[in-house]
């Protein structure tokens, strides 16, 4: 270890700094490039969302996106799901099907399902379940809503744009175009505001 450190210290400072900055630059460019690739190559879905515009200390103003598909009403799913063993933070896979232009949940499972043609499987995180105790008759199977997080829930914009998006969403639903990769990760590809689509670009 001492020899390694001595050899490292013997390397001129400029060489060390250049090597470090080179690696750092590749990493930072890679961040932007990988995200752009994910946007371009994934399966495209369009989801409705309800935005709010909070603020983050490190990354500034953004529109928090609350997708309608992130609340899954289990009795509506064609494929039954058993959430009794699920714990907050568990990985789930949500299968979505395009039904008349609306992407609708058809299955929710802790194991990745083989998707039918045209279906898209999105990676999600289990948050919690909401039982309707006291609302339905005791002893019967209670309908359950499952709350999940599919990610892609921050759209960063300057304060004025975030406010404008919020206003637009109050007029009608704001739609987000997502690109879903082979691993199920969803990234924001664009927005549809007032029927006009605005795609994210690299530059």
């Amino acid at each position, binding site marked *: 270890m001492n020899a390694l450190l001595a050899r490292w210290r013997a390397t001129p400072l400029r060489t060390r700094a250049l090597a470090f900055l080179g690696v750092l630059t590749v990493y930072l460019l890679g961040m932007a490039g990988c*995200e752009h690739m994910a946007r371009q190559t994934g399966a495209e879905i369009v989801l409705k969302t309800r935005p709010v515009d909070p603020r983050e200390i490190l990354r500034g103003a953004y529109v928090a996106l609350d997708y309608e598909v992130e609340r899954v009403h289990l009795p509506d799913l064609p494929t039954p799901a058993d959430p009794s063993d699920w714990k907050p933070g568990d990985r789930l896979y949500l299968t979505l099907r395009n039904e008349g232009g609306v992407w609708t949940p058809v299955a929710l499972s802790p194991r990745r399902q083989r998707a039918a043609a045209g279906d898209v499987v999105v990676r999600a995180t289990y948050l919690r379940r909401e039982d309707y105790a006291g609302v339905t008759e005791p002893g019967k199977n209670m309908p359950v809503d499952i709350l999940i997080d599919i990610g892609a829930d921050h759209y*960063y914009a300057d304060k004025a744009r975030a406010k404008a998006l919020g206003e637009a969403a109050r007029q009608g639903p704001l739609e987000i175009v997502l690109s879903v990769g082979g691993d199920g990760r969803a990234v924001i590809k664009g927005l549809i505001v007032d029927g006009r689509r605005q795609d994210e670009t690299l530059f």
Partner: protein
Amino acid sequence: MKSAGAKRMRDGAYLKRLEADLARWTAAGRLSGEQSQALLADAHARAAKGQGSFANVAAAMGAVLFGLGLITFVAANWGELPKAARLGVSLLLPWLAFAAAVRAIERAAAGVGQAFALIGALSIGAAIAMIGQTYNIEGSAAGLFLVWSLAVLAASLVFSARPLLILFVILAFLYFVFDRPGDFFLAHGPSTRPSLSLFGAYYLALLFAGAFLARRWDSGAAMHLSGLSALVWTVLLFGDAIWLGRDRDWTAAGLMIAGAGALYAAAGEVFRARGERAGAIGLAWGAAAVLVGVIAAEFSLWEDKKVGVEMVFAAAVLGMTVWAINWGDAPGRRAVRGLAVALFAFECFYIYAALFQGLLDTSLFLLGGGALLIALASGWRWLTRKQKPLAPEAAP
């Protein structure tokens, strides 16, 4: 400025004490006049060097403010700029800051160079956040702090800069805090899911890297921050992670924390005995962990209302503090002594509040304990006087 003034006052008082001691040792024939002068000159030189470091401290503080300005600039959402310009600025900032650092260090302005390196390290965080914002990249705060801390670790190795090492230790700790599952025990109760991040397993590698470099570069601030981080990690490990949703037993948890602290202290003592400052600092933080563990266990016993166990425990703790106060009377062990005095004071309060809650019972317990200690002290003095007569030069 106030702290610099206070430091000058402390240095002045120390030099006066040293002058008096040196005169006494020279008069007793233990030092020659030349040796005495050389030691005094060295002490004066060290004090003067300490005063000169104000410029470095000011430069580092300025760098921190500048770096925070960069990060808040990002948070202001500079949406007017096109994406290419934002990406360019994100990449350019670290390059400019580190290039200035290299230039300053090559011109023998190490303090200014380290300040620029610190700006560069802070700008890495700003760059990651800016690119994340520009391209809507999803990510957790833990992920940001992990990548940032690793980059700052690399930068600190490149520049051998202590300020960067301190920043790395802080960022790594923030990664640990944000990487833990949401049921952080202070806010949400016991954990329910085992995971490596719950145990801080990944963080340990970063903690060791920081402590290793802090010892190697003799950075007191980084060593202390590593010690504090190790203390928090230990408390979370034994106080939260190992129970995994079962009912937490704070008596056991407190004893485990205290036991781990004793191990850290023992390891620190080994290095302290070799004359290493890192050892003394490790010893101090180990003793702090013992203090935290003992207090946690005692509060738990208090709630359980086990008076007999409490009395035995309190007596054992009092005995331990008396031993530690005596043992801590040596260079590099003063923090142990200070913590033992604090624990002694806490224990006296605890005995009244938790055990007896009545002045008469408390006074009897304390009178008995005090009389025992005085008897022990008298016996000890009698034994040592019998074995070793006073040296002639030490006699009044």
